């Protein structure tokens, strides 16, 4: 509000930066791509200059993955990642390419692709098509697009909607594009768990893609429109219906809670605490002894957990891992908390492929050495990257819990009668 009066005072507390350089130690990009000036330089150091003159904006800021690991490492609580992303939004004059629009418009592409899912899945999986996409759109041919589902989650849900009203307690589910167009099973798994502990699951009045890919591809106006629509729907759910909004993707939840406010300037303070990951919601119910889960005796798995960058920033990995540890047959190992390199649409771009794989290298090696039955992670793009780069399958913790859950016993324990 007083930005004009105090031009050299930031809202991102970059003045707290002591130049200690700890952030650059944990930047996944700076070590593998020397074209990137690193978080300290790109963030607080240059922000000082940019505030004086926009000409100091450096195009190489586009190399930032927005992983926020610099912020997590900073001993002085400087919002380094936010400073960099906000500078890109404010100063970048790069126009998004056709390719960027295709990758970022998950709703439009998802709707079209799931309508013709069998054809699309076959065609985009074909080698010549991959080569054409590589040459014409600069989508790297090493990449495999996630398969589209012919039945969208929303269509499946319509048939369940009436049943969900029968429960005493209710939540709303922000399913996100991945669950809707690619992998409805994850959404069904969440419904299975929540129903078993007595919660009805509902969709928001309106839901659009959270917009994380729009933000990172510079389609800010569209991101803002979608963010406003989502925020209004969430407000209705939290404030009017008293329903917490849950998600199964750490990046969607992080975007809805934090990035809308920090990057798109949307005031959501009143509802922020009503948006959370499903694993946190379930953990709280168990921790406060309001709910009990019963698991099958025959479920056995060696699982390695990968902490997605935005999960690290949220600090919520402990909820997903604590829930999985409650399953008697689970043996859980924590992988080193490092970026896997995909960063949403970043790794799909031809120019980033090599860097993306170099960033993830140590994690891939760790996974191949451990050879777990599967890797667990709360982010869909991490899942794609790990499955494309290792021999191990990846599952969301919610799916693992759903698979291991003894539904009947759980319903009895929680006195759920329908």
């Amino acid at each position: 509000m007083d930005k004009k009066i105090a031009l050299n005072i930031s809202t991102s507390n970059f003045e707290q930066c002591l130049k200690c350089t700890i952030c650059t130690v944990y930047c996944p990009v700076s070590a593998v791509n020397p074209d990137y000036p690193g978080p300290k330089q790109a963030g607080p150091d240059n922000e000082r200059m940019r505030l004086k003159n926009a000409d100091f904006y450096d195009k190489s800021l586009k190399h930032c993955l927005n992983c926020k690991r610099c912020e997590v490492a900073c001993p002085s609580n400087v919002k380094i990642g936010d400073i960099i992303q906000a500078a890109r939004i404010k100063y970048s004059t790069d126009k998004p390419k056709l390719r960027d629009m295709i990758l970022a418009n998950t709703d439009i592409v998802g709707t079209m692709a799931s309508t013709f899912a069998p054809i699309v899945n076959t065609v985009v999986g074909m080698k010549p098509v991959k080569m054409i996409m590589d040459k014409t759109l600069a989508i790297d041919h090493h990449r495999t697009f996630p398969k589209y589902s012919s039945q969208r989650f929303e269509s499946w849900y319509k048939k369940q909607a009436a049943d969900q009203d029968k429960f005493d307690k209710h939540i709303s589910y922000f399913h996100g594009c991945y669950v809707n167009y690619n992998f409805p099973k994850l959404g069904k798994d969440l419904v299975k768990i929540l129903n078993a502990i007595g919660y009805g699951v509902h969709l928001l009045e309106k839901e659009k893609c959270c917009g994380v890919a729009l933000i990172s591809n510079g389609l800010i106006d569209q991101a803002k429109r979608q963010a406003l629509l989502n925020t209004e729907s969430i407000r209705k759910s939290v404030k009017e219906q008293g329903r917490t909004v849950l998600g199964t993707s750490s990046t969607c939840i992080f975007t809805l809670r934090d990035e809308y406010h920090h990057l798109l300037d949307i005031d959501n303070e009143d509802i922020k605490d009503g948006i959370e990951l499903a694993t946190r919601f379930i953990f709280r119910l168990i921790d406060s002894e309001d709910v009990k889960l019963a698991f099958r005796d025959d479920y056995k798995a060696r699982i390695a957990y990968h902490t997605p960058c935005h999960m690290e920033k949220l600090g919520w990995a402990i909820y997903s891992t604590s829930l999985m540890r409650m399953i008697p047959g689970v043996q859980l190992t924590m992988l080193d908390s490092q970026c896997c390199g995909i960063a949403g649409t970043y790794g799909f771009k031809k120019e980033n492929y090599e860097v993306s794989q170099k960033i993830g290298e140590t994690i891939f090696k760790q996974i191949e050495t451990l050879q777990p039955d599967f890797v667990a992670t709360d982010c869909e793009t991490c899942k794609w990257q790990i499955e494309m780069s290792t021999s191990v399958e990846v599952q969301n913790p919610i799916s693992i819990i759903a698979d291991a859950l003894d539904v009947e016993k759980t319903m009895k324990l929680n006195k759920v009668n329908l």
Partner: protein
Amino acid sequence: MRFDTIIIGGGLAGLVAGIKLTSEGQKCAIISSGQSALHFFSGSFDLLGYNGTNEIDNPIEAIAGLDAKHPYAKLGASTVAALANEAKDFFASMGVRLNGDASANHYRISPTGELRKTWLTLDKHFACDSLESLSLGKTLILNIDGFLDFHPHFLSDGLKRQGVDCHVASVTIDELQRLRTSPTEMRSANIAKVLHKDDAIVRLTEKIAEKSQGFDTVILPSVFGIYDSLMENYLVERLKCNVKLVSTFPPSAPGIRLQMALKQRFQNLGGVYMLGDMVTNGHFEGNRLMDIHTANHKDIPFEADNFIIATGSFFSHGLQAHLNSICEPIFNLDVTASGERQQWFDQNVFETQPYMSFGVVTDSNLHPQIEGQSVENLYAVGSLLESANCLKEASGAGVSILTALKAANNILKR
């Protein structure tokens, strides 16, 4: 969420306490707001190096001369000696090789070529009882081209003043040259990351061997590895001359390695390490701390039987200076801070700075106090404590490690 012990602060003190407790079967969590001072590690742990400007040869004997409020004075000389031995075993059991002894300080070399009294120094790093005893002979200080956090000429001047025949040169390989594209990122951690890949260290070692022909000793910046010390071993095996590593300006590669190793050890023992979070407040009943809340976890409390606060000094916001007061920001623990703001510091930056000795008041068992009342299940450890001036007395790591072990031992005894 319930734990046996919750530790606030994930630096050297917090991790040492956490490892000690988890290795004895406790369920522990560490909550850390950002990375720690280990990123500025000199390669040596100090115990007690100076009394004013006088060098201390035997730290244990020197404890008798300390102020009664000093953490070592509270522990007592015999406990300090016992804990110092325990500390050495502690690091040895983790595979961290440290040389030195609590009853006989040795010298490390500062990045500007000064000899400084210290307690334990990492294996392969520059350490000596006296320069003569090292018999360095014809010495080459070898930097990496374009690396700005290591200053061979400062070092060389320092060593020449002590009569060492010292020469300076630099060396590089293609990958390291490429790092120079972004000069601000040409730092020890990134150099180490590059050297960890493929056969980079093999090629660099060949170049170092070439350059160091005809020299008795080669001094190198300590940038060889943040994930393990395999590269250091390789260098020493391959080079025919005497190899000495010297710490660089921050970030410190051996410090990062130590931080990662300690954290890994803690997690392998079942500890939960939460980085980038901040404890916002605690809930007390009588003289006991019952649970704490954090910025990330908001309404979900963290409960424990015991708590350790190891939040560090001003740098890491364990202590905060306001216009007319110094406070401990989480629980508002009692703090010693004398006089008006003008008296907190000396205009001459090299003089003893009073604010450096400000810190949290504790009883002899390291329980801090709120309005004069000890909190019986809370321990304060590390550079948060009153009376120690880690810079002037060279006591930082010693206070952190020993008070952390002491608090952990007390908790285990209960």
